């Protein structure tokens, strides 16, 4: 694609060191012992090691919350933006610089409550980036208030007699909003998380992985129903293989938004895996098309000459 960023030279490949777990390990996490987010961090290291992007091209962004401390713990270019608004910030990094790999991290409050509007609209715009939501169904950093994914009846400091507001349906919201890769995982399922995160990173468009990540301090046991070791069921979505077999008909068609929505409506703890995956043009591509068309009309002109001709029309 043609854009201003394509003119940016990348560093020569020969003097580049490989990405190792050590090279991308940042500060020691400030999370409580036992927090599910440790596993998400470990899996992210693993995925970066596998993908081997140039070190300087990886960007780790976050908003505000326990999980949003993430960028400090990863030694890459990164940013710790304001509460709920890491998505438009991250989308701009992606749009402004095609050479970068942009990852945004956040929690359920950041993504579904204060940042809900940005989640919907970023999904709609489909910029090339990955968003990982560590959903613990409680406000942890502020010490136990009801979150947008807290179940009805959850007792918190803001709902001492139990939550009364219907929780949001994360997968359903994402399907409706037009995100082009939507997956769900569980922080106790390392391999599954790694698969989902890698596929999200490789996806050309706005990819979202929601990971149920237990807050041992304020909502212990929240996700036991999805953890086989605690007697729960981790039911993985079987994706259609298009192999022509009769049983394939029963498998989930990830390009079918209605089917994805049906999966999103399953009773708790629901399904895990890829709910939806499609390949409509990214905002990066569409903006690139606008640039190509506009550049064609001013072919051969320097920036100065373009501005000069605008002024000439106003004489």
């Amino acid at each position, binding site marked *: 694609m043609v854009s201003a960023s394509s003119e940016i030279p990348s560093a020569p490949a020969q003097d580049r060191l490989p990405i190792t777990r050590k090279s991308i390990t940042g500060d020691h996490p400030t999370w409580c012992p036992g927090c599910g987010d440790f596993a998400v961090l470990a899996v992210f290291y693993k995925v970066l090691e596998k993908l081997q992007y140039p070190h300087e091209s990886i960007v780790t962004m976050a908003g505000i919350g326990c999980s949003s401390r993430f960028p400090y713990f990863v030694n890459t270019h990164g940013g710790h933006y304001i509460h709920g*608004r890491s998505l438009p910030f991250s989308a701009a990094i992606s749009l402004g610089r095609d050479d970068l790999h942009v990852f945004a991290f956040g929690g359920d409050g950041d993504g579904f409550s204060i940042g809900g509007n940005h989640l919907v609209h970023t999904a709609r715009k489909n910029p090339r980036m990955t968003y990982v939501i560590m959903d613990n169904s409680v406000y942890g950093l502020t010490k136990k208030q009801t979150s947008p994914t807290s179940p009805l009846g959850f007792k918190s400091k803001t709902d001492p007699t139990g939550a009364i507001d219907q929780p949001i349906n994360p997968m359903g919201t994402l399907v409706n909003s037009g995100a082009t890769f939507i997956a769900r995982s569980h922080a106790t399922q390392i391999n599954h998380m790694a698969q989902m995160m890698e596929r999200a990173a490789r996806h050309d468009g706005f990819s979202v992985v929601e990971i149920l990540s237990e807050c041992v301090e304020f909502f212990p046991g929240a996700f036991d129903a999805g953890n086989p070791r605690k007697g729960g069921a981790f039911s993985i979505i079987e994706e259609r293989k298009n192999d022509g077999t009769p049983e394939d008909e029963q498998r989930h068609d990830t390009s079918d938004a209605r089917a994805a929505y049906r999966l999103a409506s399953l009773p708790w703890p629901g399904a895990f895996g890829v709910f939806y995956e499609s390949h409509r043009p990214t905002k990066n591509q569409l903006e690139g098309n606008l640039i190509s068309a506009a550049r064609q009309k001013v072919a051969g002109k320097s920036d100065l000459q373009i501005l000069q001709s605008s002024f000439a029309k*106003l004489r």
Partner: protein
Amino acid sequence: MSTTASSSRATGNSSGPSSARSIHDAVIRLAGDSQDGIQTIGGFLARLAGRSDQEVMTYMTIPSTISGGPSIFQVRMGTGDILTAGDQTDLLVAFYQHSYESHVESLRPGGVLIYDSDHVKPDPEDKRFTAIGVPITSRTVESVGGATKGKGKNIFVLGLLGRIFDLDVAKLTTLIQERFGGRSEDIVRNAMLAFDSGYAYPADNIRDCFFRFDAKAQEASSGRPQVTMDGNLALTYGLIAAGVRYGAGYPITPWSSIMETLRSELPKYGGIFVQAEDELGAIAYALGFSYAGHLAVTGSSGPGLSLKMEALGWASMSEIPLLVINVQRGGPSTGLPTNVEQSDLMQAIYGSHGDAPRVVLAPKNVEDCFHVAIEAGRIAREYSTPVIILSDQVLATRIEAFDEPDLKAMMADPKPDLSDRGPEFKPFPLDRITRHAPPGSRMLGGHYPTVTGLEHDENGHPAAGPEMHVKMTAKRRDKIKAVAAALPPTTVHGDPEGDVLLVGWGSTWGSIREAANRLRADGRKVGQVHIRSLNPLPNDLEPIFRRYRQVLVAELNDEGLYGFGQLATLLRARWALPSIRSITKTDGLTFRVGEIVDGVTASLARNGNS
């Protein structure tokens, strides 16, 4: 522009209404409804003046209703110094009865009223003006055909004005063809028919009882070609010259036309302007672009700036360069969306939470909108800071002609700095000004920075200790003080000492200057200082202030609880001089020259005349 020389009308020596004479400028007000294309003829006249090397200044009100409603356009054109759109009009064109009733009082005694005799019945007893009925509607229908339902009245009036003022018909014809040429041939033909009909209207009696441009005074005054545009467009082109290629916004009046133009212009330069989901998203996109190494812009009008405030605090904390335009309108809340006010100064300087210093600049006229954007871009880069540009509704919609800037000398390089950073690199060094390292730049020491809104140490690690917060707060404050130290010396117009120093900021520059000139012509010792850098303030103002008995700050905002406008409050806080007082008003309109003159006279009477 040259200096001083107030117009003949400004000093009050107007001759009788019926004598033929040449004048140096004319104030024409067109009053109709917004769908009549009033803005179109106003724009034509302004462009014509610009192309003729005449100065031009316009004033426009557009109703905030979606379609329809009263609308006016005022053009003042001529040679010499055109500083304001004029307090009074020489010629009023009234399309409807309500236009006549609302605007007849704007005519100077002896002025000319042209009214559409198909719609308007003027007061026959009113002998203050020369009233001339022209069947504008029926003549237009006659010339163009009934199917157009009166469309083209504006062009008919343009033809009429062309005849009265002896304007350059060839140039006007070119303008009409440029404007309508892209559409069907019928439209151009109809427009020309309407124009010719207006031009052919027997208006010689009007011309004789009236005035025409002084041919001698029309001679070219400068070597550079003149360009004609409104303040929003000048600001937009200034941003492009400043190296801005990326930005984001959300629609709000009167900021929207800047984002509309950027959305279509930036792709030509390889850039992107995003229409965001809301104001918070818009500044987040802009900061993301800036973080990615591009100097980015966002903007809005009053309420939208309030919504951006949290993010603006982040920009101060994380020391990211950013340009923020605020095209002020009347507030608070939805307020007066299509009127002017300078009531966002405190919000621009002190808005957001915590101590979040930033730079605030205000352009004084349309030409300065272009230059202030370049200056803002330079400061944002050099000091790695957000810079707010305070324009307003008057500047946004006012069309002025000015010398085309030397674009070649002004174009800034838009390329991000992705050079390798050595092991000694610190994202927030205490001993020098922060230089943001965008992603893509390699950290040879192996440590990659996290840019953050948490208080941090030099390496960007969270640091909530008391000592570091003291040091970092001082770092962020001191770099803005460094901006002040590098400001050019303040210039004083008029008398260097004496009775009154008139101080202002933003779009009121022309009115204040004309008021200063008028007062000086009446024998007062008056100086004028116009402040462009509102935060930080220039350091050299105190000795200037001390040379005048009174320092009167004229601004379009409320006198507040303590009797001082927003800038006056800041100047008193900074220099604690009791001689600093306020001239304020809140009617949603820009200063008329007479209002400032009256304010000065009243203050001199009240607070001890010399």
